[in-house]
Structures are given as structure tokens and as C-alpha cells.
């Protein structure tokens, strides 16, 4: 029983990170209807900003950690906005495939520039926050795991607030529903899209730092696998649906951790894709998504 709870806790903390990344995918898909492959590499850049900032601030203090988190989120928001402005905006309205290929190009560019600037060898991520272990019965809870869950929940609640209660959030929902009509009622669609990219990339940066705190070895290709899995999480919950992405991330993280703890542990990386295929075949709109009928 205690082993089950332990796995559940590990799964939820991994799932919270997937959820943070998945939110960025789902929001961009919501407004622009394309898969932003470069999102996974923004996650990587976030972890690296955390690495370099972590050497400046005093290690192992709460304030230092929060400053690092804030700087990385701001830096990545800027990066996301620049990527959108330079690579995706010229292609607005082009065929989906072309945008998809551009996204793959941006992803490769970030990965290989990362290898050039940061070096291809893995680095050890510093302990930003004070770490303690609690023993609760047979359960071992690290403060890092709790931190992941707390930060993720805080960020998701504030995201929900921004999207549902603020003016720019209302504009985001309007653009996602119908871009042309949104323009007609006076919404500046460029501003909304830039904002969406900034918001999504900031969440990815937070995800990157939290991931690096729990798996403290970072390299320029670290984003590929978590990125793909987070995308699966976004589809699982229903792409374009914000609560769905959170749910999908938590589910996927939990399932993956349980598979990794079972006798099929070597198939850990395949399970996410198996879930993806099953969900697309039987419920392509995802768990919380709505079906749309294609009109001629």
C-alpha cells in the first residue's frame, strides 16, 4: 500500500510538469491551430537559464529559487514571443504542413544552437531550493516533489484566472473561437497571439526548472522526450482545452510512473505513444474535448 502511494506521489509530481508543458501546447493550438514543436526546446532553454542563474543567486534559499524561477519564466516568455514574431507570423494563413515544418526547423535550431552555446555534455543542475526529506509511515516525500506540485497548482490557478477573468484572457478565448469575428469586434489578433506564446513559454520555463530540480542532469536535447509526452498529454485531455491539458498531464505522468515501477519498465517510453494512438482512434477529441463536424 505504501509503495502504491509512493508511486502515486512520484507520478503526480511528474504529471504536474507534463501538465505545465502541455498547457503551452494547448493554448497555442487553441489560437493558431498548429503544433508548436519548438515548445519542448523552450522548456530546455528555461532549464538552462535556471542553471546559469542558479550560480549567481545564493543556493538553497527560497528567495533565490523564486528569483531564478521568475527570471527563467520572463526570459522564455520573451523567447516565445520572438520565435512567433520571426518564424510563425510570416506564415500566418499558410498551409498547416508548412507551419509544422517551420516549427520543426525552429526546434532543431534551438537544439543545435544549445549544443553550440551550452555544450552537448550533460550538466548537473544546482539545488535551488532547500531540500528536505519527510518520512511519513513508509512514504518518503521530498520537498522538491511538494514544490513541483505546489508551483504547478499555483501557476494553473493563475492561468485559469487570466483566461477566464481578465480582458486579454477573454480576447484569447474569442480568437480561439473565431479569429475573423474577433478581429471584427476590434481585438488586435497579433497582440493576443504574442501574449499566448509568452504565457505558454513562461509555463514551459517553469516546467523546465521543476523538471531539472527532480532530474538534475540537463543537456540541450533534454526537451525532446518530455515535450513529446506533454503533447500526448494535451491531446489526451482534448487539444485546445486548458483544464484538459492539466488532467491529461497528471494522468500520463501517473500511468508512466506505474509502468516504470512494474516489470515492463523498459517499455516506459512506448506507453505514452500507445495511449496517444488509442485515444486518437477511439476519442480523437480527447477526454474533455468536444467533437466538431467537418463542413464542406
Amino acid at each position, binding site marked *: 500500500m505504501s509503495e502504491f502511494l509512493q508511486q502515486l506521489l512520484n507520478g503526480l509530481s511528474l504529471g504536474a510538469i507534463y501538465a505545465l508543458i502541455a498547457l503551452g501546447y494547448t493554448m497555442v493550438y487553441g489560437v493558431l491551430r498548429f503544433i508548436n514543436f519548438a515548445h519542448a526546446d523552450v522548456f530546455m532553454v528555461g532549464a538552462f537559464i535556471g542553471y546559469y542563474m542558479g550560480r549567481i543567486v545564493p543556493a538553497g534559499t527560497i528567495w533565490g529559487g523564486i528569483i531564478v524561477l521568475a527570471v527563467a519564466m520572463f526570459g522564455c516568455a520573451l523567447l516565445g514571443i520572438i520565435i512567433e514574431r520571426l518564424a510563425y507570423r510570416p506564415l500566418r494563413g499558410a498551409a498547416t504542413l508548412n507551419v509544422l515544418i517551420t516549427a520543426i526547423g525552429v526546434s532543431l535550431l534551438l537544439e543545435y544552437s544549445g549544443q553550440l552555446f551550452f555544450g552537448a555534455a550533460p550538466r548537473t543542475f544546482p539545488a535551488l531550493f532547500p531540500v528536505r526529506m519527510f518520512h511519513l509511515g513508509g512514504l518518503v516525500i521530498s520537498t522538491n516533489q511538494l514544490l513541483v506540485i505546489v508551483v504547478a497548482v499555483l501557476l494553473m490557478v493563475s492561468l485559469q484566472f487570466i483566461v477566464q477573468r481578465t480582458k486579454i484572457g477573454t480576447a484569447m478565448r474569442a480568437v480561439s473561437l473565431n479569429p475573423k469575428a474577433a478581429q471584427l469586434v476590434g481585438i488586435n489578433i497579433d497582440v493576443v497571439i504574442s501574449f499566448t506564446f509568452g504565457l505558454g513559454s513562461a509555463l514551459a520555463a517553469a516546467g523546465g526548472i521543476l523538471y531539472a530540480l527532480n532530474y538534475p542532469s540537463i543537456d540541450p536535447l533534454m526537451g525532446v522526450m518530455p515535450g513529446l509526452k506533454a*503533447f500526448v498529454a494535451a491531446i489526451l485531455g482534448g487539444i485546445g482545452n486548458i483544464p484538459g491539458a492539466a488532467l491529461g498531464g497528471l494522468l500520463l505522468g501517473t500511468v508512466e510512473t506505474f509502468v516504470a515501477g512494474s516489470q515492463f519498465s523498459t517499455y516506459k517510453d512506448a506507453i505514452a505513444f500507445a495511449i496517444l494512438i488509442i485515444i486518437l482512434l477511439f476519442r480523437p477529441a480527447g477526454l474533455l474535448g468536444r467533437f466538431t463536424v467537418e463542413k464542406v
Partner: protein
Amino acid sequence: MPKPHLALFGALLVALGLSQFASAIDPYHLDVLMGVGINVILAVSLNLVNGYTGQFSLGHAGFMSVGAYLSAAVSLFVAPQLFGTFAQSGGVQQGIVFLIALIAGGLSAALAGLVVGVPSLRLRGDYLALVTLGFGEIIRVVFQNVEKLGGALGLNAIPGHTSIFWVLAFVSITIFVVTCLVHSTYGRGFLATRDDEIASAAVGLNTTRYKIVAFVISAFFAGIAGGLYAHFKQNITPTGFDFAKSIEIVVMVILGGMGNTVGVIVAAVLLTLLPELLRPIAEYRMIIYSLLLILLMILRPQGLFTVRNPLLRKRPS
């Protein structure tokens, strides 16, 4: 092309003729040439799905790995038991055994294509791309876990049967099959499916069937290319056939212009030679490559070598 069969026959003769002078060519150049040929097969076969049928597959490396593993397994484990010394005696006998191994690899890849294609081709666009990507990754993880096929270490000491003759012969056969297929009456169905799936279905074409046929043929040639690759490099590992390899093939198709066989061949040749030429500045190689990709999509989305007929341009919607 007025007489495609003659052209194929001619190309095979040229391949045979050229292979007689193989020893006179610098070994490095010969290696590069074989790598180019294998990539041409991959790109031309993927073009049947991505270009002519308008579907977006990101799992071509997965089918390549099925062909590579199965044909290598035939050469390593099955052939010595079935044919004994007949396979090692060189010359024509060895060629026949190699051909059997290649065909076995191609057929198993085609079977994998059928298994993947039947459920996933009901989806379209981004979703299809993701499902094929997912299948490619699953195939890789499965090979990593099969101990009989070497697990994560892969297969070693595969006999190096691949020669310039085999590569050029299969390049010609692939181009021949794809070209003849899309220019045949049946092949018009692929183009119709690409141009407007709903309209094609409305006039009675079974679009799902066309998509599956394209997928299976494309997977078959990917398997052949995988078999050639395995007997060329002589060792294969599961990580050699990952997502990055699939992307590389897709980029060749995009660069050449989707549904433009000549353009795709040129692009495959260029993109295989480019890393060799950029070897002195190896660190910047992939950065240049990715920048080119982004610029190309923004400036020339129809591919480098496709000239659009201005009369056929879509009206702005």
C-alpha cells in the same frame, strides 16, 4: 516519359555497367554515393504518401528499421541454415540470397505499414503526423527490448552485401514504380485524394483504400532501403532510426517540393552531400540546416524545384 520500361531496363544496365568499374572509384566517394542512393529511395517512397497522396507521415524511419532488422536477421540467422555454403559462395548465388533478404525486409515493412495504416489513416493532418510519429517510436522501443535482435546494442557483423549495383538498381526500380503508379489511371486516385478528399469521396473513390495502398507501397520501399542500409553499414542500432531520421526524410520531400519526383531526388542528393561538404564547419552544420529550413518555408513554401502553374493557383479565400 514515353517508354518507362525501356528507361528502367537502361538504368539497370547502367547500374550493372557502373558496378564493373566500382573498384576504380575512390572508396570514400563510393560510400557517399551509396548513402545518397539509399536516401533517394527513402525520399522518393515517402513522396508517394506525403507528396502525391497528401498525407503527412512522420514515421518513415520506423518502417526503414523494420526492413533493416528483418533483412539483417534473414542474412544472419535464416540464410546460413537454409542455404548453407550456397550463400557464402559469392557471385550470383550470394546475390539471390541477398535479394531474398531484401524482399523479406521490404515485405515485413509493408506488413507493418498495413498494420499502422489501416487504423491511423482515418485521421488527417496533424493527427496523422502524430500517430505515425508515435508508431515510429514504439517500433524503436520494441526493437530495443527484443534480445534476439541485439536489444539496445543492435545487430553487428551483418554481411556487407550492399554494392553500388544493388543501390542503383533499387533506386531505378523505386523511381520507376512510383512514377508509373502516379501516372497510371489508378494513380489518379492518389492525386484526387490529395487535392480534395471530400470531393473524391463524393464521386465514389474509396479514399481510405488509396491512402492505405500508398502507405503500404511506401513502407515496402522504406524497408528495402533499410535492408540496403543494414548490409551497407554492417551494424544497426535502434537509435539510428529515431524521430530525427524521419524528419530528415520529410525535409528532403519538402525541399524538393511535395509531389515532384525529380525535385525530391535532387533534394535527397543535395541534403546527403551537404553534411559531407560542411564537414569542416561541423559545429555550425545543423544550425545552417535548420535556418535554411525555416527560411525556405517562409520564402518558398512550394519547395525549391517546383514551378507553379499560375493558372492553377488557388483563389485567395
